[in-house]
């Protein structure tokens, strides 16, 4: 009798776990299928290359927003990736120093600062003094969000490189900075790349910080010193508009953004499985 109860209990609990996992997946598939259904019909070649058109005029697209997002992410990465990697190197290679412990805490706090506050901060220190919304300010806010993410993953990946590797480098008569930069970091390179891609996927969808920094632009931006359109902001503007065809375009924009992030995540999977997350191959 007791055995029977135990057996049914086991089946029941197994079912509960399976059910909970399934329920967690439902929203994900829901989002994907809904965005696909709504966005797909509005996607066309023109959507990727054309400027937005006034309401009622057909053939408008998100060309400037897509390009704007690419520019913002690129600029943010140029600043945020090296900065974050250097910070991560310090955290990993000088991990016992008081400064590193303090820095690690700060980085963790920075990770959880709401992105809208990052936007306000950049508004205060970049937009106000320059008296203009700009791509530069937008990129600065995204970079600030990237740095802690990149720093912490870099740190974790460098910690996986065995001490014997560092010692072998030192024993070759190489200065410590060369050992760190050309041997330890190289051993962790695919893991660090994973962190960079994670950070890119994270900032690609950020909207709040861009509202106060890059703002938006109905046209192509010609310099980095003027406001620039971006996918998330454009989606926001179109989604809250009262026009049906703009809603459709917002769905299409959402689909593009979603696929970009999905692609980046798949690429991360690929990196992890093919190289073993920066450990030995």
């Amino acid at each position: 009798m007791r055995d029977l109860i135990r057996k049914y209990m086991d089946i029941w609990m197994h079912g509960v776990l399976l059910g909970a996992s399934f329920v967690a997946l439902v929203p994900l598939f829901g989002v994907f299928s809904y965005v696909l259904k709504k966005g797909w019909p509005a996607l066309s070649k023109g959507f990727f290359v054309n400027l937005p058109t006034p309401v009622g005029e057909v053939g408008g697209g998100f060309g400037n927003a897509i390009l704007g997002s690419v520019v913002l992410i690129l600029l943010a990465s140029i600043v945020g990736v090296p900065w974050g990697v250097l910070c991560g190197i310090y955290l990993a290679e000088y991990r016992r120093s008081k400064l590193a412990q303090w820095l690690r805490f700060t980085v963790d706090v920075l990770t959880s600062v709401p992105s809208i506050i990052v936007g306000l901060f950049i508004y205060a220190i970049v937009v106000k003094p320059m008296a203009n919304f700009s791509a530069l300010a937008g990129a600065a806010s995204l970079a600030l969000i990237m740095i802690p993410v990149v720093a912490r993953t870099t740190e974790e990946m460098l910690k996986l490189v065995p001490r014997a590797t560092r010692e072998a480098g030192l024993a070759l008569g190489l200065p410590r900075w060369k050992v760190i930069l050309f041997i330890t970091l190289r051993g962790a390179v695919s893991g660090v790349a994973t962190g960079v891609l994670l950070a890119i996927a994270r900032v690609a969808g950020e909207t709040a910080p861009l509202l106060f920094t890059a703002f938006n632009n109905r046209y192509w931006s010609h310099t980095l010193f003027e406001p620039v359109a971006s996918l998330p902001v454009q989606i926001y503007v179109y989604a809250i508009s009262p026009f049906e065809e703009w809603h459709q375009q917002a769905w299409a924009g959402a689909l593009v953004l979603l696929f970009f992030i999905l692609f980046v995540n798949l690429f991360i999977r690929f990196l992890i499985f093919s190289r073993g997350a920066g450990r030995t191959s």
Partner: protein
Amino acid sequence: MNVETVHTAQNQLLQANHINAWFSENHVVKGISLSVPSNSIVALMGPSGCGKSTFLRCLNRLHEEVPGAKVSGEVWLSEKNIYARGTDPVSIRRQIGMVFQKPNPFPSMSIFDNVAVGLRLAGVRSRAALSEAVERSLRGAALWDEVKDKLKAQGMSLSGGQQQRLCIARALAVDPSVLLMDEPTSALDPISTAKIEELIVALKANTTIVIVTHNLQQAARVSDRTAFFLMGEMVEYDVTTKIFTNPQDNRTEEYITGRFG
């Protein structure tokens, strides 16, 4: 045996005087002095935890890289005290190479790069010079024939024994005058071990080798002189055949006859 005050007796390439080493408060090497003649092989043997590896790591100033580690004493390499004030450990380590217990090829690097990296990062740019050095070192480490067709393969893709010979080639590439080996075969199977021992003996022609081992037979097979370490002290240091046939200290005798350790 009294080697204390001799800096550089004739053809003694390496001379350690009164080396003490600590991990934090833990005194692991206690006043050891030892001289190594050039083009010879000196084995340091003793039970685990006797300080032989730590002493070895004092000879290329690697011990001080461990957080909390301390060293005192002198080590003379030819005419130079490597612990003299203002001496750069980096320049010392270029002359005193090291091979570690576990094979540790650099991750994400090809076989070629593993061997070339020491020279490349020291500023050698010429492709021809690097190729030449890589071939010479791999030949020196008796690995060339096995890898010459796959120099672009990852160093980590080799077998354990091959990886260890790759590490030896990597150390040889920067042309050190002394090679320190920290139990280089303890992670390897008997066949790979035999190959490496053969290699060590061959390397004597061009370098001077200090090898740590807790394998008595290995010390007997490869070395010219053997030091016996026990609890941070050097019990005895003499010509290998003498240590194994006629030890002066009965602790040495007990160890080599297998009564402890």
